């Protein structure tokens, strides 16, 4: 049901591109090669999990720039960096910016495949997380304003009686709203609801008055 994983190889050296593509294909991974970060940025966003194998040095725009641009464009693909020769400050910067691995050429083929596996797994997890959040967000959108108020007060730990007092309605009405809200959010217990709110980044502070 998921689109097949894809590895983007970005290197200015055509023989490296071909060789890495061969290696990835030999383990059944789909590879797409680009000669420069610019070319890659013009390509379409991948459907399935993906990662980037990237040379650090390019004329004009460095691999680190690409990393920043992807982060800015909200395409936070995991990146495996390949420096030509070790450049420690660059390594540190790349690692801080969330690079998966740093492979100094020439690296062992297995090291690259391991790093790619880790990177793809990380992207898969990120995508799953994103999908879950998308799902929760759509559930949240089905709530009426009153149900939303009740949600906020519930996750803030208020009792039905307190909620009724704050909203100026009867406790009975609160119970009905609360039942609807729990059903729409597909939460069977309060603990579950609180976790969802957490994932959505909802504030557990006071409800909007």
């Amino acid at each position, binding site marked *: 049901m998921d689109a097949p994983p894809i590895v983007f190889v970005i290197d*200015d*050296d*055509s*023989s*490296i591109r*071909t*060789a*890495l593509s*061969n*290696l990835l*294909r*030999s*383990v059944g991974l789909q590879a797409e090669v680009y*000669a*420069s970060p610019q070319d890659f940025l013009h390509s379409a966003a991948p459907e399935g999990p993906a990662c980037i194998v990237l040379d650090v040095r*390019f*004329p004009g725009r460095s691999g680190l720039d690409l990393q920043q641009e992807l982060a800015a464009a909200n395409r936070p693909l995991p990146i495996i960096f*390949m420096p*030509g*020769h070790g450049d420690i400050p660059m390594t540190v910067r790349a690692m801080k910016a969330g690079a998966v691995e740093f492979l100094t*050429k*020439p*690296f*062992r*083929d*297995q090291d*690259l*495949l391991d790093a790619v596996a880790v990177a793809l797994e990380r992207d898969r997890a990120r995508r799953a997380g994103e999908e879950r959040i998308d799902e929760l967000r759509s559930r949240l959108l089905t709530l009426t304003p009153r149900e939303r108020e009740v949600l906020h007060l519930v996750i803030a730990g208020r009792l039905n009686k307190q909620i009724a007092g704050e909203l100026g309605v009867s406790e009975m009405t609160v119970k009905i709203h609360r039942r609807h809200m729990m059903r729409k959010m597909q939460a069977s217990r309060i603990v579950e609801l609180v976790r969802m709110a957490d994932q959505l980044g909802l504030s557990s502070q006071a409800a909007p008055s």
Partner: protein
Amino acid sequence: MSLFHTVPLQRPHYSERFRDAVASARPAAGRYCLAIVFVGAAMVVSVASQALHVEHNRFQFYAAIAAAAWFGGAGPGCMAVVLAALGVEYFFTPPLFNLRVYPHELPDFLAFIACASVSLTISTRLGRAERALQKAHQGLEAAVAERTAALRETNAALTVEIAERERADRERAESETALAETQAQLARVLRIATVAECAAVAHEVNQPLTAIVANAGACLRSLEHDPPALDLVRDAVAGIVSDSRRASAVIARIGALLRNRKPTIAAVDVNALIREVLALIRSVVEKDGVVIRTSLCRSLPPAAGDPVYLQQVLLNLVTNAVDAMRGITGRERVLTVRSRSDPAGVMVEVKDTGVGLATADLDRLFESFYTTKSEGFGMGLSISHSIIAAHGGRLWAVPRRRHGAVFRFTMPVAAEANP
């Protein structure tokens, strides 16, 4: 007491001023008048003292004569003597009020004249000496002033010179510091050059090695597939072969660079050499969007030279050409390599459409450590130049008319009839 006794002695300033005023009262008539006034004054004093029955003496006349001689000089002094003698004879010597002299009065009168003469002489001399002294004093003062001015001038000149020397010292110290800095920088550059060279070499070797390892991994894994993915294996092995060649070409080049090996002269197919070098820089050129054009002479005779060294020269020229076009926008980046037969033997031409050559650069182009590149070391062209010269050829540069540069070198033709 008489005014003229006291004033000159006790108030010299006043008297000097007075005397100066008198002396400056040219013409001399003034001074003669002054003598008359002095003698007249002495007369008045004498008359007054006679009226008061003071015993008659002639001191006031001596004083008047002395004063006249002092202020007026010898002429007025003499006149004062004559006037005083006449006055004394006329007014105070019996018979009074005529110029006759009693014989018994004569010695007295002569004594008066003698005393007056002495007074005149002394006073004249003294006055003259005083004036001479004054003059000498003034001269001295002028001389001192003059000398002081000269000294001041010299002093000022000295100050200027001292400042000048201090500045020169400072400048020398500064230039020494600058020299030391330059030397340190040179040492640093050489070290960096070595490091950079090593790094570049490592990079050039690591690229094909990485590709080889990846391709080999791909081969092994593809062979384990059931059935084996032979297409992939073929691709990978082809890659391994070409990358191995690339790596060994790099190694050969480095070997030539590092080993100070003796050139072996052989018959070199220059066209093949050009193709090889262009293949070697393929990736760099691709990256920079440079179009390569070649125009190789089909009937090119083989050149006499060391293929590795020649390759190095060619590589240097081609890399320079590509570097020169790196920042160029708004026109095509074209690298043209031509070979042709030439009276001097074989000629190779490397043309670019890059930044071109400044006329100022032309003279220094082949000097060591001369570079116009921000990251260059200025060694490439200098080494190339000596390599070609050692082969008996010539390497030179010409700017192109619109943009870019042309580098040409000639090589002697290999002797076909060599046994």
